[in-house]
C-alpha cells in the first residue's frame, strides 16, 4: 500500500513537472507566433497563436490538478472529505484540459486544411465534442479523438517536409509523430500500464523536439 501511494505520488509529481515544461514550451512558441502576427497581421499566425495558447492552458490546468494530488499525498488531510474534493477537482480539471486541447487541435487542423467556411469548422467542432458528451468526457475517447486530429497534422507536417526539405520541418514532423504515438498508447493504457509510461516518454520527446526547433529558429 505504502509503495502504491509512493508510486502514485511520484506519478502526479512527475506528471505535473512535465506538464509545466510542455506549457512553457508551447507558450514560447505561441508568443513567437504572436510577434509574427503583430508584424504581418496574417490570419495564419493568429490561428496558430491561439492554438498554442490553448495547448499551454490545457497543460497548465492539468499540471495544477496533478500538483494538488501530489501535495495531498505528501500531506494527507481527512481521507473521505479530501477524496471527494479532489475527485471533483480532478473531474473539472480534466474537463477543461480535454476541451482546451481538442479546441487547439481543431484550430490547427482548420489552419492546415485551409478551412475558410465557419460552418465547416462548427460541424467539425460538433462532431468532435458529441462523442465526448455521450461518453461523459472519457479519457480514452479523448485520446482517440486527439489521435485522429494529430494524425491529420502529422500528414501535413510530413508533406511540408517533403516540399521544403528543411531540418526544421523534419524536426516538427517527428515532434508531432512522437506526440501522436504517445496519444495512441494512452488509449490502451487500461490494458497495460507500460503504455502509460511509454506514452509520456514519447510525449516528452515530442515537446523537446518542438523546443529544439524553436531554439534553431532563434539562432537564425
Amino acid at each position, binding site marked *: 500500500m505504502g509503495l502504491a501511494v509512493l508510486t502514485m505520488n511520484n506519478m502526479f509529481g512527475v506528471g505535473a513537472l512535465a506538464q509545466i515544461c510542455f506549457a512553457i514550451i508551447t507558450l514560447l512558441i505561441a508568443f*513567437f*507566433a504572436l510577434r*509574427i502576427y503583430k*508584424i*504581418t*497581421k*496574417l490570419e*495564419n*499566425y493568429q490561428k*496558430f497563436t491561439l492554438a498554442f495558447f490553448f495547448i499551454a492552458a490545457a497543460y497548465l490546468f492539468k499540471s495544477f490538478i496533478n500538483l494538488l494530488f501530489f501535495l495531498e499525498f505528501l500531506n494527507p488531510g481527512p481521507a473521505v472529505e479530501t477524496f471527494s474534493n479532489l475527485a471533483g477537482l480532478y473531474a473539472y480539471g480534466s474537463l477543461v484540459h480535454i476541451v482546451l486541447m481538442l479546441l487547439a487541435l481543431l484550430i490547427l487542423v482548420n*489552419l*492546415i486544411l485551409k478551412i475558410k467556411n465557419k460552418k465547416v469548422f462548427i460541424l467539425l467542432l460538433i462532431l468532435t465534442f458529441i462523442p465526448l458528451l455521450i461518453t461523459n468526457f472519457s479519457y480514452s475517447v479523448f485520446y482517440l479523438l486527439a489521435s485522429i486530429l494529430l494524425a491529420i497534422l502529422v500528414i*501535413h*507536417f510530413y*508533406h*511540408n517536409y517533403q*516540399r*521544403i526539405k*528543411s531540418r*526544421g*520541418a523534419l*524536426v*516538427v514532423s517527428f515532434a508531432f509523430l512522437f506526440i501522436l504515438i504517445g496519444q495512441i498508447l494512452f488509449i490502451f493504457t487500461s490494458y497495460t500500464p507500460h503504455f502509460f509510461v511509454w506514452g509520456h516518454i514519447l510525449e516528452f520527446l515530442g515537446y523537446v523536439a518542438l523546443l529544439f*526547433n524553436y531554439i*534553431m*529558429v*532563434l539562432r*537564425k
Partner: protein
Amino acid sequence: MKKRARLEVVYDILSSIRNKDNQIKPTHLLYKSNLSYKMMQGYLKDLMDGDMVESNEEKGKKHYSLTKKGFDFLGKYDKIKEFTDSFGL
C-alpha cells in the same frame, strides 16, 4: 513559375523600398514587386495599416518609405521564414 507566398511578397515589397534608399515611387514599386496594380494596392494598404510602410508626398510626387517596424520585419525575416517553413504555415 511558383506562386509566391504572402510572406515572401511582403518581404519583396519591403526590401524593394529599402533598396531604393527607403524612398520609392509607386510605379517603381509596381515594377519591382512584380504584382498587378490592384494587388499591390491591397498589400500596401495592409502594410500601412500595420505601420510598416508610410506614404509621403514631396513636390506633388508620392513616395513610399519604411517605418521602424518595416525595418524590424526585414531584420527578423530569416527567423520568421524558418518558423513559417518548419510548421508549413
